């Protein structure tokens, strides 16, 4: 069959399936792709001075809901992405580009409204922000002058876009890197270094008095587990010690370390597979329950 013929057959089949789904939707057997009237409840809570909820009134309103349309669109995009498993195609490219574009725009908007507005404009011009009603409780609040410095550093960071003055942005980057390193340094040292070392120092011979119930209630199994933990940490660290040639006892310990690392990578891979299958189950559930209404939830 020629390529054009295959395309025609494909579109005819898709058209028939689409028509069948539209008929199902019109018979209320699945969600409709057009806007529908729905009843929405608005809750109004009345509280006393202490903030305790004294009464609730529920207002109902008839509105046009676009939920059906967006569900159909989401299903269409899901199928476009899944179509890549057969072969690369324009539908997949469209969905991928749409996703990248919308993600970039979404994070830009989020960054503006959740960071710039409350943390910069709300600090430098609280009166103006209060007038616009964006953030409540800023009336009469004085401005915080030292937020000029983050504003200047932010503008300097944007100099990155200039080919001539882009080097200036290194100052802002240096500030960001330095602050992050400083903030994280102590906690990483405590949580990821000191406490990890202390947790690795476990008794190699475990008695009934100090069993770890997470591992087992049997002292023998706890002892074997602790010995394995010690060997794993010791041999794993030896593998990464390159100042001594890996031969003899050192070489043997290094090979044991490689095996330990491979086992942990295998476990990690297994967890990753489990996670990806769970996400696939979630997507299939969306298609067959939320969209097609074949699975009753």
């Amino acid at each position, binding site marked *: 069959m020629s390529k054009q013929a295959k395309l025609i057959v494909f579109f005819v089949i898709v058209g028939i399936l689409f028509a069948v789904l539209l008929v199902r939707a019109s018979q209320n057997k699945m969600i409709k792709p057009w806007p529908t009237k729905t009843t929405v409840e608005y809750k109004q809570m009345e509280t006393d001075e202490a903030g305790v909820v004294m009464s609730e009134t529920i207002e109902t309103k008839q509105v046009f809901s676009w939920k059906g349309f967006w569900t159909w669109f989401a299903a269409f995009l899901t199928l476009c992405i899944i179509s890549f498993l057969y072969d690369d195609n324009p539908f997949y490219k469209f969905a991928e580009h749409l996703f990248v574009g919308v993600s970039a725009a979404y994070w830009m908007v989020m960054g503006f409204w959740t960071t710039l507005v409350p943390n910069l404009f709300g600090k430098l011009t609280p009166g103006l922000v209060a007038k616009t009603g964006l953030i409540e*409780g800023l009336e009469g609040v004085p401005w915080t002058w030292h937020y000029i410095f983050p504003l200047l550093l932010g503008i300097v960071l944007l100099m990155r876009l200039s080919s001539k003055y882009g080097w200036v942005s290194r100052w802002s980057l240096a500030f960001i890197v330095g602050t992050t390193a400083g903030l994280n340094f102590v906690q990483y040292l*405590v949580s990821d270094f000191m406490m990890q070392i202390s947790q690795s120092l476990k008794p190699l011979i475990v008695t009934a008095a100090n069993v770890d119930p997470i591992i087992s209630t049997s002292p023998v199994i706890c002892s074997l587990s602790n010995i394995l933990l010690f060997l794993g940490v010791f041999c794993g660290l030896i593998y990464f010690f390159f100042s001594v040639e890996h031969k003899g006892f050192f070489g043997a310990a290094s090979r044991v370390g490689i095996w330990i690392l491979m086992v942990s990578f295998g476990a990690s891979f297994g967890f990753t597979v489990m*996670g990806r299958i*769970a996400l696939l189950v*979630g997507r299939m559930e969306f298609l067959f329950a939320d969209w097609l209404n074949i699975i009753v939830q």
Partner: protein
Amino acid sequence: MADTPETTKKTGWYQKVRDIDRRIIFLFIALAVIIPLLLQPSFPEFPAQLVKDTFAEMDKLPEGSKILMAFDYDPASEPELQPMATVWTRHAFENKLKIYIVALWPLGQNMAEDTLNELLKEYPDRKYGVDYVNLGFKSGGQGVINVILTDFAKMYPTDVYNKPLSQIPIMKDVKSIKDMDLIINISAGFPGLKEWVQFGADPAGVRIIGGSTAVQAPLLYPYIPNQLHGLLGGLKAAAEYEELADRKLCGMKCGQDAECIDSCIKEYAKRDKGKVRMGAQAIAHMVIMAFIIIGNITFFIDRRRERKG
């Protein structure tokens, strides 16, 4: 050694299996997920010790204890993490614990609202501001945790409905994370459980349990048990926690009646998303294991043929 017509004829089936089109494998995986979703088989859940310890950590809190729940995930991780969020919130409402909700991910706030809206249908007597409060999302990652380590009001002057914290009864005796009895974090990445352990629980000395995606779980095991007191890693762990929660609820409902407990658990299993999805997950795993075994068989046959040739 190149394949001769004779050897090709002898090993035709083996070559077909070895060189199978990957799209056939994708089709098998798709069917392994779709068919169980349609038929909804259920498999018994046998909670692991780590899940039991996580459950015990939550269950031992007396009525009125304060728990900080951080919703650090978005709809992309909903299949794995929403069952955990739902069962923990239900557990908290059932045990009459006070819930303080925060989010370090923008959509975490919406996930929290969806979870609350779902559970408030089961527990309509839980009052906002008295039994739970939603402080919402703040940007800044571990910077937010650093601030609320000492002063909530500095980072959250109001709740998500713009109400000052001083006017919310549940916030009366709460100044910082250190006033919490337990931190629960549901995490899909960064910032998430790792940051809550490093910047929240460790410096504050507050106990923490968490739920994470399966991908993240191996990175969090080093923190167990002294820094992280409980972990639900992925959908399987969520299903096991649901089993424990159902057993407890049904035990309270039916007493010693084993038949009543069994039918009660079966009834609750229909609403437990973790258990429902585990049916499809388990069968998909079996299909993947079968393909891994087949792949290994063809690999070793190939190696033997190369050595002979």
